[in-house]
């Protein structure tokens, strides 16, 4: 754990320094305790003069101890500050350079916690935990060494207790670990059932499943309770064993001491003094056990930080090999691309695709066919495993990420807005945008209707993540933002899925105005939005199934023609409750 801390910080001297100071403080405290023996011996022998001198020595040790402690605590805080700043900086730097593909739903929450509360937890280790932990080992060790000088038999007896205590501790831990796995699983199940409970609440109610309790959830909660009970039933004997061993060791020492004293081979004053000393022996250990939990938490955080810091990055081109992209229209092509999110499953197989500069290509296909993946590979969310993705003939891996990003506008189905006003969110794309420019994109993205309706208009707050707006409104803001950015390559992934049909037509028109000098790749479920594309590519299980214009594909009579026929059938559909209608 402490070794781990040392590897996390760039400069480990402050941490090492404070460890050394606390070791010194621990030894001093042990020495002070040891001085009890001469004090007590002298007193019990009736030699109060000597006792007074030893007492004075004890006060001396105390003064030095107090000074060292102050210095050590100061060093601890310094180390904590350095550690947390270093960790914040390292994590922040890493997050900023992680490939875009790394960020998906279930990673973002834990990462947010790691970069805030997690670092604070770690900071607590040098600030507050180092002292009790180091003292727990150093002070008893000092006492033990001293004990050898007073009476080797008692020292040996004390020492003999150590492996027993250690074995009992390990045994307890292994018991707990075994039950802990099941407990952890039960907690995960209960947690995921609760998430489901929250997400499906409307359905649960509409089907009356909240009235007499939700059996699935209740089973999960009961299972969690049972796993907890199981953990207790396993852990309590373990804990009892551990405490018993410690107590027995102390009792045994008492008996050994009495035996030695009655045998007459040890002076009574010394025995008493040593017994008093042994009382001190156990105490620091118990304190250390108290903060074990907090240490474990910090350790788990370090684990996560380690893993994050070791995430592989997309290699940036060396400065000499960097290529910049031309201004103006840019073509996109994928050349025999193979890609998988993990080593086991390929999602894209040998896929080639040419998108000439200034043309519009639509990707069509069932969910899971790889449309989104293809679009994201163009923006280098990940690197391909085989083949190459090229922009204007240049491999995207040879272009600095920031430069590539400046050439691409992306609108996703799920959009993230920043806490702030609508205007703030648009200006993200172009900090120096004029009012006219804002008004223009607002008109194109049908934002004007929204601005009229929302209190505050441009200054309406969107809430954290944009949650004060509806899904369709968020999409309109993000489309406006992409329009404002005015990049030569535009990727639209279900960009209008949440927008109502009337506004959608308007926005579709806005997208059409982009055509001409911009290269557009669009993914859409609604086929009518793609009929005008220069090229329609039907993806099937990560491969190109068919390609051509709308008319060509209909002519071809393949999968696309099937989709289209289905849609034609769907278009005239009307709802009726008609008995006999």
């Amino acid at each position, binding site marked *: 754990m402490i070794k781990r801390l040392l590897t996390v910080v760039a400069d480990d001297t402050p941490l090492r320094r404070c460890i050394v100071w606390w070791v010194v403080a621990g030894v001093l405290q042990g020495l002070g305790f040891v001085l009890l023996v001469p004090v007590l011996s002298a007193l019990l022998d009736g030699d109060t003069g000597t006792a007074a001198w030893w*007492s004075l020595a004890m006060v001396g040790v105390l003064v030095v101890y107090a000074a060292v402690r102050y210095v050590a605590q100061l060093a601890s805080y310094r180390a904590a500050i350095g550690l947390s700043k270093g960790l914040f900086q390292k994590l922040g730097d890493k997050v900023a350079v992680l490939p875009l593909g790394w960020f998906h739903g279930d990673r973002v929450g834990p990462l*947010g916690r790691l970069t805030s509360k997690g670092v604070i937890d770690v900071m607590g280790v040098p600030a507050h935990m180092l002292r009790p932990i180091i003292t727990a080992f150093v002070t008893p060790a000092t006492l033990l060494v001293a004990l050898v000088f007073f009476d080797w038999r008692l020292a040996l007896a004390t020492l003999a207790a150590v492996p027993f205590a250690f074995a009992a501790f390990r045994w307890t831990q292994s018991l707990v670990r075994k039950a802990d796995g099941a407990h952890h699983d039960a907690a995960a199940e209960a947690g995921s059932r609760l998430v489901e409970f929250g997400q499906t609440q409307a359905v649960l109610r509409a089907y009356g499943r909240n009235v007499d309790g939700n059996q699935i959830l209740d089973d999960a909660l009961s299972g969690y309770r049972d796993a907890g009970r199981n953990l207790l039933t396993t852990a309590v004997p373990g804990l009892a064993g551990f405490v018993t061993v410690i107590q027995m060791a102390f009792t045994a020492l008492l008996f050994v001491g009495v035996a030695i004293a009655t045998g007459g081979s040890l002076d009574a004053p010394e025995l008493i003094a040593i017994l008093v000393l042994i009382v001190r022996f156990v105490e620091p250990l118990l304190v250390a056990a108290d903060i074990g939990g907090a240490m474990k938490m910090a350790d788990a955080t370090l684990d996560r930080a380690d893993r994050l810091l070791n995430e592989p990055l997309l290699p940036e081109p060396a400065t000499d090999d960097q290529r910049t992209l031309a201004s103006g229209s840019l073509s996109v092509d994928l050349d025999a691309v193979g890609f998988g999110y993990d080593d086991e499953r390929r999602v894209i197989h040998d896929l080639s695709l040419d998108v000439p500069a200034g043309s519009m290509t639509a990707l069509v296909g069932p969910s899971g066919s790889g449309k989104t993946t293809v679009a994201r590979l163009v923006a280098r969310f990940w690197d391909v495993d085989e083949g190459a993705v090229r922009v204007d003939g240049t491999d995207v891996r040879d272009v600095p990420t920031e430069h590539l990003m400046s050439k691409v506008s992306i609108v996703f189905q799920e959009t993230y807005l920043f806490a702030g006003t609508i205007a703030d969110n648009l200006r993200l794309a172009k900090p120096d945008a004029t009012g006219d420019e804002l008004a223009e994109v607002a008109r194109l993205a049908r934002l004007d209707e929204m601005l009229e309706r929302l209190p505050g208009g441009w200054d309406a707050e969107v809430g954290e993540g944009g949650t004060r707006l509806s899904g369709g409104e968020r999409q309109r803001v993000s489309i406006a933002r992409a329009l404002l950015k005015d990049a030569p390559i535009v990727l639209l992934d279900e960009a209008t*899925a949440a927008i109502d049909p009337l506004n959608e037509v308007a926005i579709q028109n806005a997208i059409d105005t982009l055509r001409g000098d911009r290269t557009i790749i669009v993914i859409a479920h609604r086929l009518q939005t793609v009929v005008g594309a220069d090229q329609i590519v039907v993806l099937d299980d990560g491969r190109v199934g068919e390609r051509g214009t709308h008319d060509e594909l209909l002519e071809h009579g393949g999968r696309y023609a099937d989709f289209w026929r289905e849609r034609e059938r769907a278009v005239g559909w009307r709802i009726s409750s008609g*008995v006999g209608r």
Partner: protein
Amino acid sequence: MPDTNTPADAQAEIPPPSIGLGELIRPIRSKLILACLMQAVASIAGLVPLIAIAELAKELFADGGADDGRLWTIAIVAAVAFVVRLAFYLGALSVTHYADNDLQLEIRRQLADHMGSVPLGWFDDHDSGEIKKLVVDDVGAMHPLVAHALTDITSAVVTPIAAMTYLFIVDWQLALIVLIPFAIGIFLYGKQFSGYGENMAKYNEALEEVNVGAVEFVQGISVVKTFGQAGRAHRRFIDAAFRLVDYFWDWVSGLLRVSSAAEVALSPLTTLAVIAGTGSWFVSNDWISATDLVVFFVLGLALTAPILTLGYAMDEVQQASRAAGRIGTVLAEPVLPEAADPAVPADNSISLDGVGFSYDGERDVLRDIELRIEPGTLTALVGPSGSGKSTLAKLLCRFWDPTAGAVRLGEVELPDIARDELYRRVGFVFQEVQLLRASVADNIALGRPDANRSEIEQVARLAQIHDRIEQLPDGYDSIVGEGALLSGGEAQRVSIARALLADPPILVFDEATSFADPESEAAIQDALSNLTIGRTLIVIAHRLSTIVDADRIVVLRDGQIVETGTHDELVDLGGEYSRQWSADQRASRARDALVEGSEVPA
């Protein structure tokens, strides 16, 4: 020593009415009292071996030499006291832990029940992650308090009092002197904590900024990167983080002298030095015997040692109280009232009389809605987004109660109808499909858990999904999300099968703005057609073309009904609807123009 483990979400705002910690732990109060009593016995028994050392000294230095028999008796008494201490300590621990285990289930069930009865809008403000955190983590956060802190505090109070009582009996003057460093330490602690509240508030503020910065940085990074603004978000996060760290430094370093002095005053070494020094002086003056002094050395520390334990315990109490506060707030959330003496609706007609609704009490989403829906008719709700049509539909399912007027089913106000009776009559098909991680069969049978397999298969056939389910690895027993990986369109059809099986006479249907899979759009429509036959239908319509056959179209704008009538009537009226209709027609003509000449070859 400011504690760095303060929960990030310490709330500064004024707490709403809440059920307190004491109320929450009431069910296990007697067990907790028992555990504390057991702990008190254990703590006192724990002092006996220490006193035995002093007794041993007395015996060894007794006039006339030590009596071996007595020495052994003392040792045995000490050993027995150990056993007693151990037994009672473990007993107390077991009692609290098992009680805590039961209490957690109890509170979790209460929370689940309660959340199932609050207005649905509550779930808009509390996402599923929060719910999980509340029920799993916050309830779990009470564990340190219930299982440990109470017994720890008992021990930390009983031990020093018992020890000091003993010492006062042995020699009250010396006992008083032993109290001096303790008093100094406590005084210094008090001084250290004088500005604590203010400092802590500032610290929490800085921490909150880091939290916000971190969340925004992490969640928005993909967006900022595509706009080349990663540097700015990064800087903002790092700045907030460094401000927090610097604030921490200012705070602790400013207090370092006082806090170090307090801790040194309370350290065992100080107590021992005081006893050694003054003890030597007392002994040399014959005010106390050397053997009596021994007991001071072993018991003197009992006074200061629990301070640390108390500190930890207080921290645990505080954290648990905060968690309990969050739990209590949810439990105090008002529920939709349940009729004590439910009435049965006369028929399946629906009427809304002067209905108004507001989510926040400020802005009206619905106003003065007067609407009567006859059994067996098709009513379409139409209007731009934000016009209140979805809200109106949800009032019919009693996801909320209206803030003005009344919604009646068969002449009975919804709150006066038993909930299962209401849901037997009114069903809802949502735009977003919500399937549970359970077998496909269980998902279909959600509203009628007693349905048999052939009934389930029958509705699956009607919903055009039976064949697909048969292809799943375990057929109807495949678990959704595990064995059964369904596409959006397939999931939509499962949810239609669910509604078919529940077979409510009234169905509220939220038409999808888009279909999840282009290839299954027509199949979904076929399934829907089977579902809608013979029911009272209320449709939230996004495309006017699908509802031209409606018996009545209700046009909403800004929460009010502006027009009602059939399609033809409304088109003739030349108002809001007819404007939307012609815009819609123009839009679809525009689409058709795009595909002109692209007829599907037969």
